[in-house]
């Protein structure tokens, strides 16, 4: 039997905000996923901020990208019941914080599978991207685990640093920075799942 052909991707375009991230952009529509994955009131000691920018070829921080992150919790489970204090999917557009940041409140996940280092899945959608692209956010604290991680091993040594979030603040809340470079010298590694 012939398999059916995949429905082609098309760009998310510049006008996704009221449909996909309405609460963040102050539209009168509920958001399915927000920039807050971890309820910091319940789990303040585990909360981290993951923030970054999306740079284009000219080094401009893009103000109309939508970043989606997917991650397991600290027990390694996908959680989608918000009342449990953790939600596995986050979404944020880069158009509401001056400087064009995305900024998620979350936690460092457990490793998804044995032998892997803790990592957050990240998907980039934006005007000028006809198909979304996937990357993975690792953390600089796990040097040994990162060295053995099977995804990082697929990447040449000199490009691995594009996948490692850097700790830029320790307290009162730990902040990790992860910038995406769509092109140019430090082009971020993207995976094809």
């Amino acid at each position, binding site marked *: 039997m012939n398999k*059916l052909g995949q429905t082609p*991707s*098309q760009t998310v375009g510049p006008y996704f905000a009221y449909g996909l991230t309405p609460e963040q952009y102050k539209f009168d*529509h509920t958001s*399915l996923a927000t920039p807050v994955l971890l309820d910091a009131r319940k789990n303040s000691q585990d909360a981290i901020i993951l923030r970054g920018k999306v740079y284009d*070829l000219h080094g401009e921080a*893009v103000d109309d990208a939508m970043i989606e992150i*997917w991650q397991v919790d600290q027990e390694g489970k996908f959680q989608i019941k918000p009342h449990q204090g953790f939600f596995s999917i986050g979404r944020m557009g880069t158009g509401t914080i001056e400087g064009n940041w995305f900024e998620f409140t979350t936690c460092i996940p457990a490793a998804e599978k044995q032998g892997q280092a803790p990592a957050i899945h990240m998907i980039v959608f934006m005007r000028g991207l006809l198909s979304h692209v996937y990357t993975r956010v690792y953390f600089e604290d796990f040097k040994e685990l990162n060295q053995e991680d099977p995804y990082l091993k697929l990447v040449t040594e000199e490009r691995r640093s594009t996948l490692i979030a850097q700790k830029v603040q320790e307290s009162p809340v730990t902040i990790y920075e992860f910038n995406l470079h769509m092109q140019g010298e430090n082009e971020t590694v993207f995976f094809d*799942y």
Partner: protein
Amino acid sequence: MDTTQNQRDWTSHPPLIAPGYKSTIFRGPSQNLITVPELMKPSSGPIFGLESVAPLDHDLTKNGIKNGEPLGERIVVSGRVLNQHGQPLKNTLIEVWQANAAGRYVHKRDQHHAPLDPNFFGAGRCVTNEEGIFKFYTIKPGAYPWGNHPNAWRPNHIHFSVFGPNIGTRLVTQMYFPGDPLLDYDPIYLAVPEKARERLISSFDMGLTEEGFALGYQFDIVLRGHHSTPFENE
């Protein structure tokens, strides 16, 4: 087991850099994507959002009403979400957003000189049923100009964001309408490999059309196959 079934089929999807669509030149990655071996891929993901679909979310002709009915041609859009083996995918969340009948988005950045409709918001969502079928009501969106090249116009379209069984089946796309003369000039549509383009065009369907109310359009969505039992005779 067909181990290629999970791959994104790049003979169906547009390339990351398509010079006719100018912003891809400096926003699309230039280096090759790194292929993840089959066994390493995330095999599960959250099935989410089902509880978040409010009663009027699937009816864009009603969910933005302030003081009257939205202007424009009412349509009903329905179709099936399938995997590549033709098996229906139930409980699949679909988010949609679009311009109004005049070709204007409520998005604050859209400054196109066309009227907003106080009774049309233009976003909604729906979920597929046990047979993989979704359905929503809306107003047929208008065409609008954009800045890609001189006299550039986007064909009528509805944006779709679809979740599937895992992160690999995530899809964002656009549904077009049959017979739209602007399709031949649209670099976003034309960036799709020719053999796959027509999959993005809905078909007019008299059977879906609701008498005295709305014209029907059929639009099926095929996500990458995953975790399905391949047919024996494949």
